[in-house]
C-alpha cells in the first residue's frame, strides 16, 4: 500500500465529515508531499486503518479516547519506526543524563497518559526506580495496565488528570515522561508546566512532541482528530526555556521533536 493511497482515502473520508477539524485536516493534506514513502509496514497499516475510521472517529467528542484510536496507537507504538524514535530519546537521555547523573532511588519515574505503555516499558529496562502513571480514563487505564501486567512491570497508578497530580502524589518525582500519542491531545504547555511543578529540583523531563511541519505524515490524521500539541522546534525551545529548564536537548527526528531537560 502506498502512502498516496492512504492520503487519498483520508481525503475522501474527510470530505464526508462536516467539522472545522476536518476542514483544517483537508488543508494539511493539500500541503503534504504525496510521493513520500513509508517503509514501516505497521505505520502504513495503522494509518490506513485510521484513514478508514475517520468518519466514525469524527463523531466522537474525544476520538483519542476511543477503541479505534487505542488499536491504532498500539499498532503504531509497536512499530519499528516509533520504537526507534523512543530509543533515540533514551539515547539522548543516556548521553545527556544517565552518564552524568543518576535519579535517586527514592524518586519515581512518572508518565503522563501512557497510552499503550510502550514508553514506560522502555524506561523500566534502564532505570530501577519505582514507576508511576497518570491516567484518569478508566478504559485507557485498563488498556495500559493489561500490557504492563503481562510484562511484569509494577507501577503506581494515579487515577487523576495531569492537572490534579500534585494533590495526590505520594513520592518525590525524579523524571516525567511525555511521550505517548495520547499526550498529543493535551496542551503541551500545560503538560510541561505540570511536569515542572511536580519534579524535584534536578529532576528530568523527557518528551516526544509532534512536529508542526507541512510534510509530517501524521499531521492531517491528528489534526482531524483534534491534536493540541503540534509545535515547531523554535516554539518548543521557547516553551522549555520559559520553564527555566537547564541542560535542554531538543532535536527533530522524522515527524517528531524529541526533548529532554533538567529542572
Amino acid at each position, binding site marked *: 500500500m502506498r502512502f498516496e493511497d492512504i492520503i487519498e482515502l483520508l481525503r475522501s473520508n474527510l470530505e464526508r465529515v462536516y467539522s472545522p477539524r476536518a476542514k483544517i485536516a483537508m488543508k494539511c493534506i493539500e500541503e503534504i508531499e504525496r510521493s513520500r514513502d513509508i517503509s514501516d509496514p505497521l505505520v502504513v497499516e495503522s494509518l490506513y486503518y485510521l484513514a478508514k475510521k475517520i468518519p466514525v472517529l469524527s463523531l466522537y467528542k474525544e476520538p483519542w479516547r476511543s*477503541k*479505534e484510536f487505542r488499536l491504532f496507537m498500539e499498532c503504531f507504538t509497536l512499530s519499528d519506526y516509533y520504537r526507534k524514535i523512543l530509543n533515540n530519546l533514551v539515547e539522548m537521555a543516556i548521553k545527556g543524563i544517565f552518564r552524568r547523573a543518576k535519579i535517586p532511588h527514592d524518586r519515581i519515574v512518572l508518565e503522563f497518559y501512557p497510552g499503550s505503555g510502550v514508553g514506560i516499558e522502555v524506561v523500566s529496562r534502564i532505570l530501577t526506580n519505582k514507576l508511576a502513571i497518570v491516567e484518569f480514563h478508566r478504559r485507557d487505564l485498563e488498556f495500559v495496565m*493489561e500490557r504492563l501486567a503481562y510484562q511484569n512491570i509494577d507501577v503506581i497508578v494515579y487515577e487523576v488528570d495531569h492537572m490534579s497530580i500534585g494533590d495526590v502524589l505520594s513520592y518525590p518525582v525524579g523524571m516525567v515522561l511525555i511521550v505517548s500519542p495520547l499526550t498529543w491531545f493535551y496542551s503541551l504547555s500545560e503538560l510541561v508546566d505540570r511536569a515542572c511543578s511536580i519534579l524535584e529540583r534536578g529532576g528530568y523531563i523527557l518528551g516526544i512532541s509532534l512536529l508542526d511541519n507541512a510534510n509530517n505524515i501524521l499531521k492531517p490524521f491528528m489534526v482531524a482528530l483534534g491534536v493540541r500539541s503540534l509545535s515547531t522546534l523554535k516554539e518548543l525551545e521557547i516553551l522549555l526555556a520559559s520553564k527555566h529548564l537547564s541542560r535542554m536537548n531538543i532535536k527533530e527526528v522524522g515527524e517528531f521533536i524529541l526533548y529532554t531537560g533538567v529542572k
Partner: protein
Amino acid sequence: MYITKHKIKLRCPICRDECSITVDSATLTSARESPSGIVGLAIPHGDHVVIVYIDSKGRDRGVRAYRTIIGETIPTKLLRLTPDFLQKFAILEGFRISLGMRNIVIECFNEEPTTVLSSKYEDLTLEVLPNELNSFKVAAYWMNSFLRELYEAVHNTDFRTLMKGLMLLDSTLTSPPTIYTRNMFKFTLLSGKLSVVVDRDAGRLFMKYLDLLPWLYKGIINKILESNGTLLLDLIKNMDSPTMKKFMESLLFLERRGVVRLEVR
C-alpha cells in the same frame, strides 16, 4: 458425609434422552426440611435443565425441564446439583448461591460443608468451598465482584450463564485482582444474550501485530475472530474454567480495542 441411597432413572421431557440421578441422605434431609416437602435435584442438560422432585422418602414426585430456571415458577426453593457437576471446577469443591428475591437457592456439594467462604450483596448470597486459597482478601474481592455483576445482570441471567459465571469465579479465585478483568463476570453472566461481532478492519490490523504480543493465546484470539455473529454462550459452553478465563480475558482484550463488540440479541 452424604450416604448414597439410590439412583433414579428418568427421561428428559425436552430431548427425550435417558439420564440417572443419585438420591442421597442429604437430599432426603433437605426435602424433609423444605416447606413444600420436596427438593429439586437439577441435571444440566445442554441448553436446558432437568429437575427431578424428590420427597423425604426418596420417591420421584415428578420430572420437569426448564430453559432458564431463574425467573421461572418452580415449586421448590432449593435446587441441588449432583456432585459430578463439580468436575467442571478446579478450585471449588462446592457452592451455594441464594438469589434472594428470585426465591431460589442452587447448591452443589460433594460433602456436607463444615466451613464455607460467604459473601453477600443486596439480596444475593454466595457460599463457596475452595480446595485452595491464596488470600481471603483476594477471594472476597472476586466473590463480591461476581455478586455485584450478578445483581446487575440477574434479569438477563439464566441457569447456564449463572453456572458459567461460577466456573469463571472458580478460575479467578486465587488470582490477584486486575483492573482490566473487571467486566469478565458481566459478559459471562450476559453471555446468553450477547453476540460477538467482529470488526473486519480492526481484526485485520490486529493480526498484523499479534506476534508482538506473545502473552496472548493465539488459538483463542483466532477462534474469537472467526466467530462473527455467534452467541457468546455458544462459544464458551463447552469450556472448562481455566480455558474460559483465558477466553474471557482475550475477549475483553479485543473488545477494548474495538476488534470485537458485544451486541445484545
